[in-house]
C-alpha cells in the first residue's frame, strides 16, 4: 500500500502526466499509420526516454505509446480496412463494413470502449498475479534461470512468422550479436570484427532494434508503391446507446479474459488474441449472422482482446524477465536501461525508490488504460486524419528520429553506424523471409542464458547432473513442447493438403 501511495506521488505530477499523454497521442498516431507498429514506435522512443528526468516520466511515455498504439491500430482497420498494427487484423472484419454503412464513428467509439475495458481488466489481473508468480520464481537458481531463458527462446517457434528454421536462425544471430564485443561475464573482447569501441551490450541493442525495425521498415515502405486509401466520408459523432452497450457486454467479458490469458502466454500476441476472441464471441452471439457485416460485437471482441494483451504480456515479462513478444522485449530492454531489473527480484526490491518505481508501472499502466478513453474521444477527428499523412513526409522524418535516437543512446556516431548496419541487415533478411522478432528475443535472452549457465556450472564445478531439479526438468519439457508443437502442426497441415505434383 505504501508503495502504491509512493507511486501515485511519483506519477501524478504535471510533467509525468504530460509525458504519458504525449506518449499516448504518439502511440495512437503511430498505431493508426499502417507500417508504424507499436514495436517500432517504442524502439524509436527508447533513447529519448532514457534522457527524460525523472526516469518514471520516460517509463510512462513508453507505456503510453504501448497502450496508444494498440488502440490506434483500430482506426485504420475501421476507416480503410488496413490494420495499423497486426493486432487489429480481426477488427477489419466488422469495423470496415460498419464504416461503409456511414457508422465509422460508432465503430471507433465501440472500439475505444472495448479497448479500454480490455486494457483495464488485464492490468488488474497483472497487478493481482504478478507478486505471487514472482515469489515462486524467486526460488529459481541460476540453472533454472538458464532453463527459463531457454524456454523464452523456445517461443521463437511461435513468433517466427513463416519458417520456424529461419526464426531460430534469427534468434541465434541475435544471441551472437549480443555476445559480440566486451563480455562482462568473462571480462574479455570477443568476436568484435576488429571494432574495439563497440558500446556495451545494453546500449548497443537500442540502435540495433531501431535499425532492424524502423530503418528496415522505412526502406521497405519506400520501395512499395502504396496507394493511400481515403477514409470514410465525414461522419457524425455516434455514441453507442444503452441497448448496444448491453449487447456488447458479453463480448467485453469474453474478449477481456481471452486477451489476458493469450497475452500471458509467451509467443502469442494481440493478433492471435483478437482472432480467438472474435471466434468465441461469434459462437455465443445471438446475432451470429451479422458477424463480418458490421457487427458491433465483432469489433468489441477483436479490440477488447488485443488490448487485454497489454497487461497479460507483462505478466511473464515483469515476473520472470521473459518477454513474450517483440514489443515486450523492447519494453524489457528499456526498463533495464532505466535501472529496473524485470524478473523475480523486481518484487523484492528493498530500496523504497525502486519499489515506488515498480508500483508506478502498475499504476501507470492502469492510468494509461483509463486515460486513453477520453484522449481517443477528444482526438478522434485528428487521429482519423493521420492515416492520410504522405509517405514522402513520414519516412524521411522517421529516419531523422532513428538517427537522433541512435546517436543520443551512445553519444557517438557508433550508435548511428550500428543502426545503419542493422537496418540493411534487417532489410536483406526480410527479403529472404527472416522475421525480425526472434532477433530481439535472442539479443535480450542470450546474455541471460549464458551468464546463468556459467554461474550454475561454476557452482556445481562443471557437474551438470548436480544441477537437474524438478523445476528445471519442467522448464526443459515445456521448451521441447514449445519448439516441437509448430513442427507437428505444420506436418499435420501438410498431410491434410493435397499433394502437388511437381514437373521437371
Amino acid at each position, binding site marked *: 500500500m505504501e508503495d502504491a501511495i509512493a507511486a501515485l506521488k511519483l506519477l501524478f505530477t504535471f510533467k509525468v502526466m504530460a509525458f504519458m499523454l504525449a506518449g499516448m497521442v504518439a502511440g495512437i498516431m503511430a498505431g493508426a499509420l499502417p507500417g508504424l507498429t507499436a514495436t517500432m514506435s517504442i524502439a524509436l522512443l527508447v533513447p*529519448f526516454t532514457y534522457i527524460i528526468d525523472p526516469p518514471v516520466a520516460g517509463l510512462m511515455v513508453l507505456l503510453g505509446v504501448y497502450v496508444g498504439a494498440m488502440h490506434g491500430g483500430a482506426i485504420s482497420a475501421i476507416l480503410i480496412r488496413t490494420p495499423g498494427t497486426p493486432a487489429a487484423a480481426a477488427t477489419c472484419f466488422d469495423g470496415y463494413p460498419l464504416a461503409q454503412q456511414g457508422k465509422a464513428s460508432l465503430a471507433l467509439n465501440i472500439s475505444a470502449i472495448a479497448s479500454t475495458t480490455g486494457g483495464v481488466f488485464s492490468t488488474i489481473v497483472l497487478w493481482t498475479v504478478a507478486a505471487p508468480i514472482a515469489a515462486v520464481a524467486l526460488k529459481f537458481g541460476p540453472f533454472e534461470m538458464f532453463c527459463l531463458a531457454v524456454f523464452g527462446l523456445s517461443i521463437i517457434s511461435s513468433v517466427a512468422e513463416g519458417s520456424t*528454421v529461419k526464426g531460430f536462425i534469427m534468434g541465434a544471430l541475435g544471441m*551472437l550479436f549480443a555476445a559480440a564485443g566486451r563480455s562482462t561475464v568473462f571480462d*574479455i573482447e570477443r568476436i568484435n570484427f576488429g571494432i574495439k569501441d563497440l558500446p556495451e551490450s545494453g546500449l548497443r541493442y537500442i540502435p540495433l532494434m531501431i535499425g532492424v525495425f524502423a530503418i528496415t521498415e522505412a526502406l521497405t515502405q519506400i520501395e*512499395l508503391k502504396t496507394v493511400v486509401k481515403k477514409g470514410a466520408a465525414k461522419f457524425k459523432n455516434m455514441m453507442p446507446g444503452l441497448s448496444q452497450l448491453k449487447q456488447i457486454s458479453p463480448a467485453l467479458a469474453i474478449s477481456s479474459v481471452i486477451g489476458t490469458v493469450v497475452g500471458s502466454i509467451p509467443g502469442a500476441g494481440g493478433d492471435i488474441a483478437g482472432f480467438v476472441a472474435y471466434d468465441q464471441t461469434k459462437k455465443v452471439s445471438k446475432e451470429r449472422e451479422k458477424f463480418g457485416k458490421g457487427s458491433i460485437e465483432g469489433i468489441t471482441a477483436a479490440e477488447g482482446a488485443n488490448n487485454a494483451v497489454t497487461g497479460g504480456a507483462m505478466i511473464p515479462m515483469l515476473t520472470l524477465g521473459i518477454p513474450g513478444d517483440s514489443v515486450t522485449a523492447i519494453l524489457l530492454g528499456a526498463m533495464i536501461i532505466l535501472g529496473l531489473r524485470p524478473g523475480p527480484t523486481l518484487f523484492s526490491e528493498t530500496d523504497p525508490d525502486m519499489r515506488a518505481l515498480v508500483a508506478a508501472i502498475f499504476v501507470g499502466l492502469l492510468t494509461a488504460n483509463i486515460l486513453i478513453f477520453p484522449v481517443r474521444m477528444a482526438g478522434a477527428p485528428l487521429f482519423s486524419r493521420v492515416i492520410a499523412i504522405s509517405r514522402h513526409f513520414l519516412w524521411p522524418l522517421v529516419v*531523422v528520429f532513428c538517427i537522433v535516437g541512435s546517436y543520443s543512446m551512445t553519444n557517438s556516431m557508433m550508435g548511428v553506424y550500428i543502426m*545503419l548496419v542493422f537496418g540493411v541487415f534487417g532489410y536483406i533478411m526480410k527479403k529472404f523471409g*527472416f522475421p525480425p522478432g526472434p532477433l530481439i528475443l535472442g539479443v535480450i535472452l542470450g546474455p541471460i542464458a549464458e551468464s546463468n549457465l556459467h554461474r550454475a*556450472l561454476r557452482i556445481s564445478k562443471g557437474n551438470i547432473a548436480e544441477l537437474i531439479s524438478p523445476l528445471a526438468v519442467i522448464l526443459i519439457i515445456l521448451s521441447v513442447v514449445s519448439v516441437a508443437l509448430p513442427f507437428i502442426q505444420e506436418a499435420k497441415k501438410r498431410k491434410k493438403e493435397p499433394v502437388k505434383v511437381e514437373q521437371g
Partner: protein
Amino acid sequence: MKNPRDVFIGTVLIAFSALIYQMTLGLPAGSASGGLAPSSFPRALAIFIGALSVILVVAGIFRKPDGEQEKMLGPLFRQMVAFFCIMVVYILLMPQIGYIVSTLVFLTASVLLIMPQRKPRDLAIGILFVVVSSLAVYYIFGIFLNVPLIEGPVDEVLRQNVFGLLGGK
C-alpha cells in the same frame, strides 16, 4: 533447385557461421572454475546457425516454397536505393556540418525524391515541412529534452541566439 533464395541465403549463413567458429578458436577454450569458457557460447551458436543453415539449403534444394514468394525487388526499388544513398550521405555529413544543415539537406533531397508530383503547391508545403520539422526536432530534443545532438556552426548560432531567447537550456 526448388527454392534458390533459401539455398543462397543458407550458403551465406554457413560461410558466416564458419567465420564465427574460426574467430572463436582464438579465444580461451577452457575454464578452471568449471564454468563456461569465453568461446563456448559463441562457438555453440556458430554450430547451431551452421546446422540450421544446412537444413535451409537442403530444404531449398528439394522443396518448393510454401505459397507464392513476393518479388525480390519492389516496384520502387531504384527510389529506395537512391533514398538509402541520401541517408548514408546524411550520416557521413552530420559530424562535419552538424544536425541542422545536414537534416535540412537530407529532408529536402528525400522529400523531393519520394514526392509523386512536384506541383508548386506541393513544393511549398514540402519546404515548409522540411524547415518546420528540422527545427522542431532540434528544439524538442536538442534544447527542451537536452538530448545530445551533433552540433555544427549553424546549430551553435541557433542555440545561442534564437532558441536561447525561447527559454532553451
